[in-house]
């Protein structure tokens, strides 16, 4: 049981770290491509949406990829 929980927590940590790296790149290069209403938004806005980005980053990776293709 403990081993399984440890694995889940490790995967969660890795997922979150990838989310942090993705968010930084996405806010810099992809956000406006995916949602044009995010043009000229402040760092406060990006800070507010960043916790959610740590969860939903795969969705935005997909959207970013589609918008570029």
């Amino acid at each position: 049981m403990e081993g399984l929980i440890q694995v889940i927590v490790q995967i969660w940590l890795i997922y979150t770290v990838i989310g942090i790296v993705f968010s930084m790149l996405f806010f810099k290069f992809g956000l406006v491509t995916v949602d044009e209403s995010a043009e000229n938004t402040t760092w406060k806005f990006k800070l507010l949406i960043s916790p959610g980005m740590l969860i939903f980053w795969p969705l935005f990776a997909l959207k970013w990829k589609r918008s570029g293709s």
Partner: protein
Amino acid sequence: MGVNYKAVQWNRQKKNYDVVLWMIIGGIVLLFSSLQLVIHPEITAETLIIRTSALTAFVLLHLILMIGPLARLDTRFLPLLYNRRHLGVSMFLIALIHGAFSIIQFHALGDVNPIVSVFTSNPNYQSISEFPFQILGFIALLILFLMAATSHDFWLKNLSPEIWKGLHMGVYLAYGLVIAHVATGALQYENHPVYWGILFVGFTAVATLHIFASIKENKVLTALKTNAVNEGFVEVLNVESIPISGAKAVFIHNQNIAIFRYLNRISAVHNVCKHQMGPLGEGEIVDGCITCPWHGYQYIPENGRAPEPFIEKLHTYSVKVIDGKVWVNPTPKPEGTYVEPAILEQQ
């Protein structure tokens, strides 16, 4: 296209709401911490923070859950609904203080990862009095985090209103987990009947308000549907099944009707183009006009008239939207008759 996002769309009303909210939160914190100090004079600062934040978040969660049905029962409560998302985020932050201090106090001092320790330190799943209640609280906190993190309009747009709404209905699951967390946790130690009574009163208040609001809504809906039937309307399809700026065709009472969804409105016209009998319901709205998929003949959705200088006219039909369903009166209006479109509720 839309207005660019802002971190918070501040206005005077929202500022007033937040000032009152944080005055209330301050009052609750003061009240609960004073009570704790009176009842347990030996209490440590960490325990005081854990208990006060728990009680404050618990009260706020009840308020949040009661605002919705209260506003449906009596419109005077609508102002409370106005900035409920700030209330929700505030409640989450206070619950986070409770969760963080609890994990630090009870799980951070060993050599096991504190999060792992939450799930593994107490294996008494068969016992009620010793149930690992912290797991329930932890999962509830994760749900509340998910909701707080996606409270900005950015998420409403990018997750889609349907998914966003579904996600935020998770508050009821979180509430159930919190009730179980309190019942199997704090109330196993502080088991005076008064505490159980307070828990019961809170739960009953939330449940009763939801039941009354639901009964009232059902009554209103039943009355609306009865009136619609009496006026000759027929329920035909879900609003969501009609593509935006598009249409769905229905055949009822020998009438071939195209129902269009555009600019948050619904209109219905005869489904046959005057030019070469093309199926208008397979067309779409272009430049505000119904546009035939065959040769591009156009009609104004509200009155079925071709824009000037053209003179073609279609039959129009009365429409209503009740509880997300489109109702149509299949009796055709004379060609070119203006019919008020049904307005859809803003998401």
